Every structure is written in structure tokens, then in C-alpha cells.
């Protein structure tokens, strides 16, 4: 006879769930509205999504206040874990999503935005990412990861072109493989420690002095592969350029930011104790992966003929750059990771939005792909403001002072030096220099070359509406005036990272 279980509502601490429930409620509401009255204009759904994301942002801000006062909070049978990392990551996830969703208000009609399901899936995806970062439990990480990934595959496919289906299928196959690796890795650690909570795994492993080293390494290898797929680290990056090319430019920009910060936070939680446990093998492997990811993707980016593919490889390179923080593992490096990613979200979303406003429905003869370099030739003559803004984002990505990413790179490299990784810092600096070359290549095309015959400059703003221009404006302001906000952001981020013990 089972005795009834008594659980007090107090101990559940349901407030920890509030930030995830808001987008879920929003998504359900959108679906219900569609059932009651179909065929409504997409602007309604955009505004509704924005509204719920804003509420979500406020809820996250509220839990950050609770964190500042009481420290780390647990909830729902200790499954939910609201610490500084969770809050910072949720700020980035929700903030970047708020910048993304107005990009649906394009001038031309696109297939995906005519379905309310697009917005519902989008909100479900955000809830998935939030669950993924706000927990210590590998089960919930897995569920959050798959909720968001499955929604993302569908969102990519909804773009409704041959290339987007191909991209969705490729991403799906890789994602399924990553899910298999993740669950196998979790199984290995469950077998070793009898727990699926990261802090308990760390405790048990430390208590028995990493006795079964061979099995620990197997588990770590599987996790590294799973995170490698999600973060597009080399050699697991093969899907990234194709998927970015196949999906819409706005979605590609979004994919380079939000899924990666969620995966970074999980990787940080998981590798933090392993890096500090003094397993030499892991340090060496991470070191090699970081260096190769940074360098090789820069080389590939040099030879691309399409701007979007170039930006895809550059995103891989940036992910490798930031992965160095997890290798270094100091508080300063972890704080630099969040700072870098906040600045990167503005810059990268801005540059992908610039591609998005210049998206045509039909390709002219001189263009081999949607965003080939020669499309941008002589852009300064026909669309001066757009080309200057585009150049601004490129310079920021290249890490030129005083633009946003310069500060990110500065803090990242200095944390590598203070962490004792001098050679790594040198490689990172060298890579920034190489990367400068291909960003400048686009600038040369825009400023130095003559426009192609038949290109009257209309194409660069073919898709522009007030909503898109506003988002680009916000991204540009964030990129230019980042230096004003660097110190407050860095103090804020460092306080959160330090107080949650990373």
C-alpha cells in the first residue's frame, strides 16, 4: 500500500517556473486565437509574441532580483535551478528573440509568417531554451534541448524553398545524432555515479577520486560530441554552413546566437568541474578543438563566394573563440563569455538582418546565390546608408575598436593571459587578424567596385519596412555605443557569474 505523498506548495517554489510558462501560455494563446478566428494578419501575432517576450523578460529580471537578494534558488523538487548563469543566459535568449521577431514584418510576403504556428513554435522553442539553461538535471536539459531543436527544424523548413527543406533534413539528422550522443553520455555518468544531476555527479566523482577514469573519459567524449554538434565546433560543424544558407537570413542570424548560448551554459555547468579536476586529457582535447575551430573556419570563410556562407563560417569561428572561455575556466573568462555573447548578438543579428532586407524573391542573372559578393559590388553608390551600416557590422565582427566586439575580444584575450594560456591568447589574436581579411573583402566590394549592370540599388532595401529598419537601428546603436555600456555590463555579468560559483 502506497502512502499518499504530501508536498507543500511552498517547497515547490513555483515562481522558478514563471519565466518558462509565460512563452508557453503565449504560444497556446496564439493557437487558440487561430482556431477561433483564422486568417488574421501576421502583425497581430508579431505584437502578441513581442508582448509575451516582454513579460518573459520582466519575469527574468524579477528572478534576477531574487537571486541578488537570496542567492541560488531551487524549485520543483530541486529540478529547477535559478542561478546567475541561468538568469544571464535567459536575458540573452529572450532579448535576442525580441530583436528577432519584428524581422517577420517584411515588405515581401514570405510563406512561414502567414502561419500562426510559426509564432507558436517560436515561443515553444524559447521555453525549451529557458528550461535547458535553468536546470542542473540532465533529464530536463535533454527535454529542453529537444523541445527547442524540434521546433527549430520546423521553423527552418517553413521557409518553403528546396534549400530550406534540405537544410532542415540535414540539421535534423545531425540533431538526432547529437541527441543520441547526449543520452549515451548521460547514461555513462548515471552508471558511474547513480545520479543525473551535474552537481551530484561532480561530488561523487570527486569523492572516489575519479577511480574509473576510462569510463569518465568515454562519457566526456560523448558529451563533447553532443555539445560539438550544437555549438558547431569542428569536426562537428559540417551542417552549419548548409543550414545557414538554406534558412532565411533572419533565422540564420538567430541560430548563430540563441541555441549556442543555451549550449554554452550547459557546457559551462558540465565542463567546469571536469576542467578543474586536473584531467590533462580533457584540457588537451578542448585546447585542440578550440584552436582548430577558430583557425580552420577562418580559412574556409576566406574562400566563400556567398556572404551568408561567409558569415556562417565566421559564426563558427566566433563560437570557437568563446569556447576558449570554458577551457580557461576562471570567473573572469566565464564573465567574458557572457559579455562577448551579448555584444555578438547585437552585431551578428544586425549583419544578418542587413542580408534579410536585401532578400529578393527571384535571382537576377549575375547572381549565383542569394547573397553573392557581386550583389554588393558598388553598394556605396546606390545605397550609401545601408552600405555604411553593413560596413559597421563587418568592422565590429572583425574586432576593430571602438565597436562592440573589440571589447569582447579584449576581455576574452586578457582572461586567457591571466588564466595562464599565453599561447592560446596569441592564437586568438592572430585569428582576429585573419578574420579581418574576409570582412574587409566585403567592404572592398561595397566601396571600391563598380555596380553590376542592371543593379539600381533597389535590391538592397527590397524587403525593408519600418520594423526591420528599427531592429537594424537598434543593432547599429548597440554596436557603435557599446563602449559606454561595457563597464556596467561587465560588472553586472561578473557579479552574477561569481555569485553562482563559476
Amino acid at each position, binding site marked *: 500500500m502506497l502512502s499518499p505523498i504530501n508536498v507543500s506548495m511552498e517547497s515547490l517554489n513555483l515562481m522558478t517556473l514563471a519565466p518558462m510558462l509565460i512563452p508557453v501560455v503565449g504560444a497556446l494563446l496564439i493557437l487558440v486565437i487561430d482556431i477561433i478566428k483564422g486568417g488574421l494578419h501576421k502583425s497581430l501575432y508579431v505584437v502578441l509574441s513581442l508582448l509575451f517576450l516582454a513579460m518573459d523578460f520582466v519575469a527574468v529580471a524579477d528572478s534576477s532580483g531574487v537571486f541578488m537578494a537570496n542567492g541560488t534558488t531551487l524549485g520543483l523538487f530541486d529540478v529547477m535551478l535559478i542561478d546567475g548563469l541561468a538568469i544571464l543566459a535567459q536575458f540573452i535568449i529572450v532579448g535576442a528573440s525580441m530583436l528577432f521577431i519584428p524581422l517577420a514584418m517584411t515588405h515581401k510576403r514570405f510563406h512561414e509568417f502567414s502561419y500562426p504556428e510559426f509564432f507558436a513554435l517560436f515561443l515553444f522553442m524559447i521555453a525549451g531554451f529557458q528550461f535547458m539553461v535553468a536546470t542542473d538535471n*540532465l*533529464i530536463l536539459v*535533454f*527535454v529542453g534541448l*529537444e523541445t527547442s531543436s*524540434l521546433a527549430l*527544424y*520546423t521553423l527552418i*523548413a517553413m521557409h518553403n524553398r*528546396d*534549400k530550406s*527543406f*534540405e*537544410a*532542415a*533534413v*540535414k540539421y*535534423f*539528422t545531425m540533431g*538526432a*545524432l547529437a*541527441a*543520441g550522443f547526449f*543520452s*549515451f553520455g*548521460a*547514461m555513462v555518468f*548515471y*552508471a558511474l555515479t*547513480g*545520479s*543525473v544531476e551535474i552537481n551530484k555527479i561532480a561530488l561523487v566523482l570527486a569523492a572516489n577520486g575519479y577511480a574509473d577514469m576510462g569510463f569518465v573519459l568515454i562519457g566526456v567524449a560523448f558529451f563533447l560530441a553532443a555539445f560539438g554538434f550544437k555549438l558547431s565546433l569542428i569536426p562537428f560543424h*559540417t*551542417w*552549419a*554552413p*548548409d543550414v545557414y*544558407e*538554406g534558412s532565411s537570413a533572419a533565422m540564420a542570424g538567430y541560430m548563430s546566437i540563441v541555441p549556442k548560448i543555451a549550449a554554452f551554459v550547459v557546457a559551462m555547468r558540465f565542463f567546469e568541474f571536469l576542467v578543474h579536476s586536473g584531467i590533462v586529457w580533457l584540457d588537451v582535447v578542448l585546447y585542440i578543438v578550440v584552436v582548430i575551430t577558430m583557425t580552420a573556419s577562418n580559412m574556409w570563410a576566406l574562400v566563400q563566394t556567398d556572404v551568408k556562407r561567409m558569415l556562417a563560417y565566421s559564426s563558427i569561428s566566433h563560437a570557437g573563440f568563446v569556447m576558449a572561455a570554458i577551457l580557461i575556466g576562471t570567473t573572469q573568462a566565464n564573465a567574458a563569455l557572457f559579455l562577448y555573447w551579448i555584444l555578438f548578438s547585437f552585431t551578428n543579428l544586425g549583419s544578418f538582418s542587413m542580408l534579410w532586407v536585401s532578400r529578393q524573391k527571384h535571382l537576377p542573372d549575375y547572381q549565383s546565390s542569394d547573397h553573392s559578393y557581386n550583389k554588393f559590388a558598388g553598394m556605396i553608390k546606390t545605397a550609401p546608408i545601408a552600405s555604411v551600416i553593413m560596413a559597421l557590422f563587418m568592422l565590429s565582427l572583425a574586432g576593430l575598436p571602438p565597436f562592440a566586439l573589440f571589447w569582447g575580444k579584449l576581455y576574452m584575450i586578457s582572461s586567457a593571459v591571466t588564466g595562464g594560456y599565453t599561447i592560446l591568447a596569441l592564437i586568438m589574436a592572430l585569428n582576429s587578424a585573419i578574420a579581418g581579411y574576409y570582412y574587409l573583402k566585403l567592404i572592398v566590394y561595397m566601396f571600391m567596385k563598380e555596380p553590376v549592370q542592371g543593379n539600381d540599388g533597389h535590391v538592397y532595401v527590397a524587403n525593408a519596412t519600418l520594423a526591420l529598419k528599427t531592429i537594424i537601428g537598434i543593432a547599429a546603436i548597440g554596436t557603435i555605443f557599446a563602449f559606454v555600456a561595457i563597464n556596467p555590463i561587465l560588472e553586472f555579468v561578473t557579479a552574477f557569474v561569481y555569485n553562482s560559483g563559476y
Partner: protein
Amino acid sequence: MEIGLNHYLVLSTILFAIGLVGVMKRKNLLLLFFATEILLNSVNIAFAAISHYYGDLTGQMFAFFVIAIAASEVAVGLGLLIVWYKRHGNIDLETMTSMRG
């Protein structure tokens, strides 16, 4: 001979390897989905066995979540497959080469 934990773990590892080879080698999309199912379900066997070994229910819970996720993954995958088949009349991965990574 008594069937112990190790037997289950070995079985799970072998199935995982089969699934992995399937994902790498299969060119037919439907068979590739089968391979991912084998991949995920091999982990379930191990979780259930370890859970019984420790006398702890967490592993079985994880296995249930994996089952649910595998099912929804196939639902999304088959949706993509049907759209691809309607457009191209085949489900061959070899034909998906309009972009080169």
C-alpha cells in the same frame, strides 16, 4: 550463467554502435530514421538496467523521457520526409546536394 548489469551494458553499446553505423552509412532517409531510433533506444536498455541495479527510479524516468522524445522526433522527421517526397519523388540523401558544405 546469470545475466548481470554488464551484459545489458554490452548489449546497449553494441546496439548504439549499430545505430551509429546506420546513421553514417544509410542513404535512404527512412532507414536513417530507423537508425536514430536504434541509437536512442539502445540507451533506454542501459538506463533501465542501471536503474534496476541501483534500485533508483531516476534511470527509468530518463528512459521514459527518451521514449517520448524519440517519438516526437520521428513525427517531425516524417513530416519533413513527406514534404521532400512530394517535391522530389524520392527519399534519397544522395540527391540532397544543392549546397556543398
